[in-house]
């Protein structure tokens, strides 16, 4: 009886231990859909990506709005500051330039030289217009103009003093106004009025040359 049982066991063991049967085709898709890890990972990564994109978009919006906001706020201030700086610079320039020109004018009046008045007035206009319109960066150029003016006046003096060599060297070197005021009266008072047209013509020529240099 035991042998029969063992025989039965053997029959079924040998017959069924390696028994195989193909499952239905759709079984894997069922299993795949129920795999918790994969499903959760895929859905999380998708959601995660979406969240990341939203976060990045939000950051971008914040950054752009911040830039616009600060630009709007800062621009008027900056403009005001720039304007104030420009005004201060212009004032400084005009304060420096105008007195010097006024002094020049005075010298011209003293010389009673009508042609010279016109020429220097032209000079003044040119210098004033240019100096007022320029900003701080042009301040150095205005300094150059002063130097140019110095040269002009020096040349004036030189031309005036071609006949009379009594010019004072100290005065000549001390600056535009002083040189002009002090040297011209002596020269012009003592000299003929015949020199005047020559001087004026020279002045205009020099001014034109100076303008070209400045440009």
């Amino acid at each position: 009886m035991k042998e029969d049982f063992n025989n039965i066991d053997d029959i079924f063991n040998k017959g069924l231990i390696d028994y195989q049967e193909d499952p239905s085709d759709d079984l894997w898709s069922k299993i795949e859909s129920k795999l918790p890890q994969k499903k959760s990972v895929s859905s999380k990564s998708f959601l995660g990506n979406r969240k990341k994109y939203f976060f990045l978009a939000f950051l971008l919006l914040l950054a752009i709005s911040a830039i616009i906001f600060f630009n709007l706020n800062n621009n008027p201030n900056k403009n005001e500051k720039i304007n104030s700086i420009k005004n201060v610079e212009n004032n400084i320039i005009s304060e420096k330039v105008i007195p010097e020109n006024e002094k020049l004018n005075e010298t011209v009046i003293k010389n009673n030289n009508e042609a010279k008045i016109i020429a220097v007035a032209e000079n003044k206009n040119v210098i004033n217009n240019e100096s007022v319109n320029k900003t701080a960066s042009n301040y150095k150029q205005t300094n150059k103009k002063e130097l140019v003016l110095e040269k002009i006046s020096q040349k004036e003096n030189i031309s005036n003093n071609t006949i009379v060599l009594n010019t004072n060297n100290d005065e000549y070197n001390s600056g535009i106004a002083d040189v002009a005021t002090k040297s011209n009266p002596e020269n012009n008072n003592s000299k003929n009025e015949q020199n005047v047209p020559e001087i004026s013509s020279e002045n205009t020529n020099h001014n034109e040359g100076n303008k070209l240099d400045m440009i």
Partner: protein
Amino acid sequence: MINEKELVKACLNNDSAAQKALYKLFASKMLGVCLRYTTNKMEAEDVLQDGFIKVFKYLSEYKFNGSLEGWVRKIMVNTALNNYKSNLKRSFHVDINEIHESMITTDIRSENLSEKDLLKLIQELPDGYRMVFNLYAIEGYSHKEIGDKLGISENTSKSQLSRARVALQNKLGEYKNDSVLQKTQ
């Protein structure tokens, strides 16, 4: 030959292609196991599905001690036993006489029993007999192990096994008689 280690590692990285490859590697064999513990293919596929989900869930616990197939097979058997236990809670025990009658009505005509015929005989056993017979005669567990797995005593396991054998022998006898009759006719 597919390297099982690489396959397992890929599956652990949630590589869907590797998971499908692992499924394809064992699906047919494991369905054969599941069919022995169930009464029909539909039920067997349910067990197979649950079993593979467990395989992928607990794959990290496989430490390459023994074959991967043996590890997967154990999971399938345990899943089938859990399925049996859950069915047991929902149904009542079938009377042994009814089973005997049902076995008589089984139609097995060929002399050399095919694998499918043997499977059919096992599937027609009462659930309790089928579990013990499978575990003892085919899987090779001891009565103690079977008792632990099914939550029954060793003696109950032994008696279930002996009843299963009687049932199967009767069925085989029926088959032999039928085949002799067919030959004499």
